[in-house]
């Protein structure tokens, strides 16, 4: 297993170097070399994961290069498998997609290099290796996104990405420095053991070390995972090649969720730090989803969708459902990569043949004909509000009764409820000839999805955190005062149920809410379509700093 773990990043790195050196001789075959290495990487990653599934413990491996080490556990091997599989798909797609690109060889060099670095990051066994790989991911992404060196826009947005990642690199450096100082070790297993033995250390400034380090790790994760307000780089990365967008949205942007899980043994000793993750994650998921609705460009739409999903992932960590965040990022990676890689084909097809079957969905989405809502809105609203809640609650009770004792689980249940209700509301709104038949199918599909989701989520929990006491400690670290929690849940439940009743009532009366409060709606629409002016603010700040630097240099005569 030690050999396999060491081989993964080295193989990808070797492929990058080989292509760089032999590109003039290999010509177009560079893609086949790179894809071949990627396939081998995937096979080795599967082997490593399978070996770890049969292992009883974790292992620290030192390949003998400087102070670097690798950590083989269920999280690192699972992530290595995910990275290698997404990398393989991207490689295979790129073989033809990038064929006419003048930087064909350079693209594969960078692709292999970034895969090597990401593998190093997920397999890192010490703070220094993790820090080094974390930094390098942002740097290599800068060059991949700026692949078309002639385009100023590509270079500009690549810089936004690098700078934001850099803003996230610094808190991680600070966290690593504090943890090293506090526990006297860089090795992760020793660090976590030391922390379990002495969780109450303080920093030189007298702050609790675990809380300070936890907060810094969260900030580092926020930048990499495009959390609000460090999200502006994500939607503007569409100037890079489509395979890079796929790799980024399916893989790299998940780094924050991985980092939080890697430092789970730190978070179990924190107090209220995870609440920051809930707040930031919630804001990100709401804003990302809202801004997604504003987009008319398919790729930007997907970009903001990723922002919303990443917010949800961070929120899951904030609620103590760490393993669920890993499950989420894996599932999101698969479907988002598919969407990105398919978007190019879709655009091409739509240009040739824009005809869409003029069914009920077409009438609803394109011609905006409001179908007459079927039957009583009260009955439909009642079904929409109660059935998803029963399904979500029931599925959890069937799989793991103890799960709903955790506050975080209750909050996640609310989100499952909203998701199901949203789907059923859509059936009501679209209408059609047999609305209740459609409703029945949707409910059945929803129930099946939720059941599978809960089963797989439970399996991930048992795989990544086999110790029930540790899992419990994660939820405890995320919990709030019980009375305050009950009040929050009651208020939220009333708001959700009341909100749906309101929406149903106005939809039945064929008076959209957006028409009723038109002025406020238009203002909100304008504000969101400008992405809350956050990127404009950053651009202005950057210009002013540059101007101030120029004035200072001129005043000092450039010496």
């Amino acid at each position: 297993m030690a050999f396999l773990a060491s081989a993964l990043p080295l193989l990808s790195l070797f492929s990058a170097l080989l292509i760089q050196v032999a590109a003039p001789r290999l010509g177009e075959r560079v893609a086949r070399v790179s894809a071949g290495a990627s396939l081998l990487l995937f096979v080795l990653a599967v082997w490593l994961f399978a070996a770890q599934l049969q292992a009883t413990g974790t292992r620290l491996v030192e390949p003998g290069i400087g102070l670097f080490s690798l950590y083989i556990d269920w999280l690192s091997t699972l992530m290595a498998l995910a990275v290698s599989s997404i990398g393989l798909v991207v490689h295979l797609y790129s073989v033809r997609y990038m064929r006419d690109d003048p930087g064909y060889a350079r693209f594969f060099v960078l692709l292999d290099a970034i895969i090597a670095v990401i593998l190093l990051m997920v397999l890192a066994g010490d703070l220094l290796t993790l820090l080094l790989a974390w930094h390098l991911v942002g740097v290599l992404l800068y060059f991949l996104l700026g692949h078309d060196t002639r385009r100023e826009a590509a270079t500009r947005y690549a810089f936004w990405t690098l700078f934001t990642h850099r803003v996230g690199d610094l808190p991680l450096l600070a966290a690593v420095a504090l943890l090293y100082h506090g526990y006297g070790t860089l090795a992760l297993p020793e660090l976590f053991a030391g922390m379990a033995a002495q969780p109450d250390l303080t920093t030189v400034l007298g702050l609790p070390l675990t809380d300070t380090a936890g907060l810094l790790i969260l900030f580092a994760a926020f930048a990499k995972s495009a959390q609000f307000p460090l999200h502006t780089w994500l939607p503007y990365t569409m100037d890079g090649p489509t395979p890079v967008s796929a790799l980024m949205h399916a893989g790299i942007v998940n780094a924050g969720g991985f980092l939080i899980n890697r430092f789970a043994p730190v978070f179990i000793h924190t107090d209220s730090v995870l609440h920051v993750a809930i707040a930031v994650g919630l804001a990100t998921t709401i804003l990302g989803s809202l801004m997604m609705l504003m987009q008319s460009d398919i790729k930007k739409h997907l970009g903001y969708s990723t922002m919303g999903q990443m917010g949800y992932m961070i929120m899951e960590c904030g609620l103590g459902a760490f393993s669920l965040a890993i499950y989420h990022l894996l599932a999101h990676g698969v479907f988002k990569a598919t969407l990105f890689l398919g978007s190019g084909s879709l655009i091409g097809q739509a240009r040739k043949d824009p005809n869409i079957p003029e069914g009920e969905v077409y009438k609803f989405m394109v011609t905006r004909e409001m179908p007459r809502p079927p039957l009583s809105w009260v009955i439909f609203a009642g079904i929409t509000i109660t059935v998803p809640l029963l399904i979500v609650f029931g599925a959890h009770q069937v799989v793991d009764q103890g799960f709903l004792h955790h506050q975080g689980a209750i909050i996640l249940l609310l989100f499952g409820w909203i998701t199901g209700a949203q789907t059923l509301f859509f059936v009501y709104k679209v209408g059609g000839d047999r609305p209740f038949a459609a409703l029945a199918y949707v409910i059945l599909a929803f129930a099946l999805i939720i059941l599978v989701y809960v089963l797989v989520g439970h399996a991930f929990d048992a795989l990544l955190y086999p110790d029930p006491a540790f899992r419990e400690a994660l939820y405890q670290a995320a919990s709030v005062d019980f009375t305050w929690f009950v009040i929050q849940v009651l208020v939220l439940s009333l708001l959700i149920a009341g909100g749906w009743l309101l929406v149903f009532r106005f939809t039945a009366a064929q008076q959209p809410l957006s028409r009723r409060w038109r002025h406020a709606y238009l203002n909100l629409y304008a504000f969101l379509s400008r992405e809350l002016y956050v990127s404009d603010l950053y651009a202005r700040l950057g210009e002013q700093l540059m101007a101030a630097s120029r004035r200072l240099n001129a005043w000092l005569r450039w010496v």
Partner: protein
Amino acid sequence: MSFLLLILAGVFLPLYPQSILASLVLRRGTDALADNDQPRPWDKAAALVILPLIGIGLITLARSLPGGDDPALLDGFALWGGATSVFYAFRLLSARDGQIWASQLYVSALALIWVGIDHGVSPLLPALALSASLLPLLLLLDELARRFGIARIGLYPGLSLRMPQFALVFIGAVLAAVAIPLSPAFFAIAGIAFGGAVSNELVTLLPLGLSWLLWTWAGTNLLGGIVFGQPREDLTYEDLDRRPALAYAGALLALAAAGVLSIGAML
């Protein structure tokens, strides 16, 4: 006496305003005072390595004298060094002339050594690591000056398309200079951060972090204005020959190896 020696050391391990002299020496080589316009890369390379060694020697001497190890005195110089580093990193953002860019980065980087000294970090390896990381860039900027008359951002963009071998080693040199892993400068920064956090994490990490962030910004400005962009049709581009390109690439790899192997000694 210790105080005066430390002030003098601030010429060689630059503290503003003594940094002006080091900055001028780096831009012009040993003929700086003679106002000779010809760049002399190896003179500057020697200055890059020798200046910090003289500074460290003076500091060691100062600390060996009575009162030289006064914590309040060293705290003051650490703050001064941190402020100088951030000050020059900020100025670096708008530097467009290659020589000015390199000299301002040099000052910003070496000023951080004072932060490490105050918190018990041995200065020799980090100083050498920071200087050595700047060396390839200094030499490549002189190559540009030889080809185009001046090394300047924005005058001849798009070198990646016209001088691919040069562009590749130039990118490596810029990344090494702004302390991207696996540059020795990265390990020097890490060493100062890890060692300095023992005494005072805020005084150590704040200037370190800010400077490093601004270096990255300035580095992308340099790359964007020279390597990327649309090349000019009215210029003649002459790429690096294979042998010098291999020599630069080998030097960069050697730097990376040195960084990896020296990290144990720096922590």
